[in-house]
């Protein structure tokens, strides 16, 4: 038996989490370094996966399969396709930056009991989330996926509720109340989604008798597993609901602004750039493969919801007074694009959506982490509290601008490629929706530039006049992300090459092909 690479990729951060949590209270710095080293090692493993993955090979590669809970028809089955590899790499890539960015976010303010170890906890939780996200991307067993899809809520919940920005306009008590509100909201939304999915998972078992994605998909494809139309639709809705909460799709989105607003910037990045991706990823992998007919049936409604998300998220982003909330609503808009791309059922749309997940992860990380650096300097999240920052901290302002430009999908930066692909992919099948979605790019420019203008330009406010520019650690965080944004914007081919075969497979699962261009069709 070959080395279980995929298991190792998930197990390493899991063990790292335990080890980090076990570091004694006084050795905070050791815990940080340990977490960083583990995350880097995980990245190395993820890169190994990336290298060993052959885009032209089997659909699922590096597969592992072991008996687990035979009684539930559950196997421990791992395997990655191109889409999963891309997202796996993204996750492994972002975690070291998140850890580095949050280096000092969890230093204890006052000592509680002797055993109170928030720093260790913070980094352990981040690694735990990484482990669970990684295994969700790898799982080819629906049940296995579900378990980690749900379980990752717990560490996330503690990260949101337990760690927040230092300063708060209404004092620590109010901050703590709002934090726990945000954490509870996050958990309840996702838990409700997850429980509804649980009902569907059980239903799937009743219908299919096992949870193997490959087996079910195959049985569906060759007709040996017939689902009654109504059943398929209900099951699809159960799955989709959970993913739509996670993604999040309008109108199930309201937990995201709260969660991102109250958590520290690295955690906010973790939510939107890493954890939420599981939702959209799962739509692509599970909804479409398991329930192709129902997916097609639901497409119009989902596209409209996605469209609403795009426009609504962007408009609300314009109306925000809080930097993080603004980024959160922007993310909602972007998730609208991703969902739209997935359900446009064209290869451009789905490749674009996958690429979008990767790019959005990087761009949001860049923007949000810089915003976090900014917020930690001034101790306020309110846009109105800033002004003229570029004068005193030009590098910070510059990186913030690049992050913002990536968010508004400036050509030359990575998100443009994916956004355009999604738009084209949607347009070829649903021109009207594609055109309306294009309005999103104007709104994106509006909220980004308004944010930049209000915080970075204009006369220097007295409170920011002594603001230091980015430190070396912070530059190390932002620099590589920006380089990646440019690289993937100029040369996304390596990623599309990996993703493309998987998307084509998915398309054939759903029995669709790209619409032919008019001229070619005429010939």
């Amino acid at each position, binding site marked *: 038996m070959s080395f279980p690479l995929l298991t190792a990729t998930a197990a390493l951060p899991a063990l790292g989490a335990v080890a980090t949590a076990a570091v004694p209270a006084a050795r905070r710095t050791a815990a940080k370094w340990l977490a960083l080293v583990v995350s880097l090692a995980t990245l190395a493993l993820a890169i190994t996966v990336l290298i060993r993955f052959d885009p032209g090979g089997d659909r699922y590669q590096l597969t592992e399969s072991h008996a687990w809970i035979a009684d539930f028809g559950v196997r421990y089955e791992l395997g990655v396709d191109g889409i999963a590899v891309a997202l796996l790499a993204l996750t492994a890539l972002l975690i070291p930056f998140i850890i580095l960015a949050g280096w000092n976010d969890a230093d204890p303010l006052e000592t509680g009991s002797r055993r109170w170890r928030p720093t260790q906890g913070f980094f352990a939780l981040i690694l735990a989330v990484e482990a669970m996200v990684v295994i969700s991307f790898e799982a080819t067993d629906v049940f296995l996926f579900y378990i980690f899809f749900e379980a990752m809520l717990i560490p996330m919940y503690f990260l949101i509720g337990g760690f927040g920005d230092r300063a708060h306009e209404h004092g620590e008590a109010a901050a703590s109340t709002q934090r726990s509100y945000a954490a509870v909201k996050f958990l309840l939304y996702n838990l409700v989604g997850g429980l509804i999915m649980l009902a569907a998972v059980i239903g799937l078992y009743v219908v299919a008798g096992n949870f193997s994605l490959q087996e079910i998909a195959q049985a569906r494809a060759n007709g040996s597993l017939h689902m009654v139309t109504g059943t398929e639709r209900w099951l699809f809705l159960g799955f989709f609901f959970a993913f739509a909460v996670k993604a999040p799709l309008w109108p199930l989105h*309201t937990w995201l602004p709260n969660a991102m607003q109250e958590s520290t910037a690295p955690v906010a990045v973790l939510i939107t750039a890493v954890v939420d991706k599981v939702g959209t990823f799962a739509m692509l992998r599970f909804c479409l493969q398991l329930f192709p007919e129902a997916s097609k049936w639901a497409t119009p409604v989902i596209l409209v919801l996605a469209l609403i998300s795009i426009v609504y998220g962007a408009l609300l982003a314009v*109306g925000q007074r809080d930097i993080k909330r603004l980024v959160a609503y922007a993310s909602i808009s972007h998730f609208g694009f991703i969902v739209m791309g997935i359900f446009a059922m064209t290869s451009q749309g789905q490749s674009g959506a996958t690429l979008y997940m990767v790019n959005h992860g990087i761009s949001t990380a860049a923007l949000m982490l810089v915003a976090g650096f900014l917020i930690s300097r001034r101790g306020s999240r309110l846009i109105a509290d800033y002004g003229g920052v570029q*004068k005193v901290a030009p590098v910070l302002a510059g990186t913030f601008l690049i992050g913002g430009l990536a968010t508004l999908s400036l*050509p030359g930066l990575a998100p443009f490629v994916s956004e355009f692909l999604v738009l084209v992919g949607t347009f070829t099948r649903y021109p009207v929706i594609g055109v309306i979605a294009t309005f999103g*790019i*104007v709104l994106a420019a509006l909220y980004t530039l308004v944010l930049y203008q209000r915080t970075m330009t204009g006369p220097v406010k007295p409170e920011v006049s002594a603001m230091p520019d980015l430190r070396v650690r912070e530059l190390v965080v932002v620099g590589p992300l920006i380089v990646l944004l440019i690289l993937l914007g100029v040369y996304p*081919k390596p990623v599309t090459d990996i993703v493309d075969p998987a998307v084509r497979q998915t398309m054939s699962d759903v029995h669709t092909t790209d619409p032919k261009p008019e*001229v070619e069709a005429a010939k």
Partner: protein
Amino acid sequence: MDNLIALLIAAPLLGAAVLLVGGRRLDAVGHWIGTLLSTTSFVLGLVLFAGLLGKDAENRTLTQHLWTWIPVGGFQADVTFRLDQLSMTFVLLITGVGSLIHLYSVGYMEHDERRRRFFGYLNLFLAAMLLLVLADNYLLLYVGWEGVGLASYLLIGFWQHKPSAATAAKKAFLVNRVGDMGLSIAIMLMFTTFGSFAFGPVLSHTGDTSEGRLTAIGLMLLLAACGKSAQVPLQSWLGDAMEGPTPVSALIHAATMVTAGVYLIVRSGAIFNAAPDAQLAVTVVGAVTLIFGAIVGCAKDDIKKALAGSTMSQIGYMVLAAGLGPIGYVFAIMHLVTHGFFKAGLFLGAGSVMHGMNDEVDMRKYGALRTYMPITFVTFGLGYLAIIGFPFLSGFYSKDAIIEAAFAKGGTQGWILGGVALLGAAITAFYMTRVMLMTFFGEKRWQPDAQGHEPHPHESPKTMTIPMIVLAVGSVFAGFFFHLGDRFLHWLEPVTGHSEGDSPIGATTITGATLVCLVVGVGIAWARYGRKPVPVVAPRGSLLTRAARRDLLQDDFNHVVLVRGGEHLTRSLVYVDHTLVDGVVNGTAAGVGGLSGRLRRVQNGFARSYAVSMFGGAALLVAATLLMRAV
């Protein structure tokens, strides 16, 4: 030689990267690096130009494939460059005028502590514009297109500490984005229609599809062009863009940015040729903007804004010409080139004046500057003569050709368009004469600036005057040079195609009419501003004047409808999100909580009531069981 094309772009791009990433270490030499790399690009352009001239007219298209950019299914975007006569023309204009502006900026920005960054942005601007004109497909063009938007954003807002500059920059970007939306929809339409968006497949298959689709594509391209070229209704950013340093205005108005729209329309000629409705829309937009810009130019007291109005109007000419189809394409480009010379010269001159006048921009506070700044006066004067179409200067040839082409459109349309073009010529003469008179003639109306410094007008340093002189030479001779033996026509014809229209009136008559308009315009201006002293405080003016001062109320319209409306919309959506979307969930939670509170009271602590509940439950259980049997 093909491989040099990429270097054209690479040189300024490298400059931008080095200058922006390099940091303070490069402060001392940054401006020279920038100028050098821009000039390098110009030299490369000349080399390529020489190479092209050495080939047959039919084989003057070079392509360079660098790498496959986005390959997804049928969607294939390549990074491929295409250098033909049309792009060559632009390359030379962009790098030539651009390099001169770089040189000029060395002096103009000397005292700005962020000069290095300014040059970085300038280089970025050139690179983006070169990418735009060299791209072989619309998507790559789009990259340059938005790159230009970004660079203009950075440059217009260069003095970010001024809120007005930051706002103007944002506005420019946003309005441009609206146009960009058009371009991206156009690309999507092309993809669904032709399965490609490279110039070759798209432009050679226009005959295979319906006119309706082509019209849609054309209109979307027009929307894009309106954004970049500041055509009505997306012209509003141009005036505000004057917040940027003057070299930036020169660059935007002469060599880059606003010309992009004209390039796009001319480049997509094949589509417009097959979609007459779209063409008509182009001409209408051009004609309206022509007059609109001219009127605005008449009312502005800010020298740069007056020039901005003029740009709008002149681009209107070009768009009008481009809308005329093959009759006009060549002349549109020709006017674009000559305009590049004289408008750059005018702006640099204006910058020179401001440089000497403590950055004062209000022409009412100028006057009698001709003796203090002789070089500026002469170069500005030559540019002035060129733009009003003074015979045998460059503007004369290009504008005259457009007016002829407009008449040649034929029918009522021809008369209307020709008439508008003529009227525009007259107004141009009026407002440019006004600018000239208010700035260089009359009495001194100088005022101390906000800090109380009296202005001491003086001639600008050599780095500034040399570019002005060079541009003045271009303004004088370029038109004649192009016109001689229809050189320009023959040069461009293989790309754009050309057809002679049959004008209802003779060419000589039109030229005569143009000259009459010119004299009338100059005369009225002289009567109003040359003979009488110019008041320092602007008179209230007529309704039209007041409207024109406010950009014909378009900003007010935008403010009321878009800004206010948008604010209301977002605010109400924030409310909706909070109360409705969130409220439903919170309401459900509260409902369950309330139910819980009520049910809780059943548990009243009395054992006997518990027993009642049990007894009742037992009774129900029994009854239900019996009932089940009965049913």
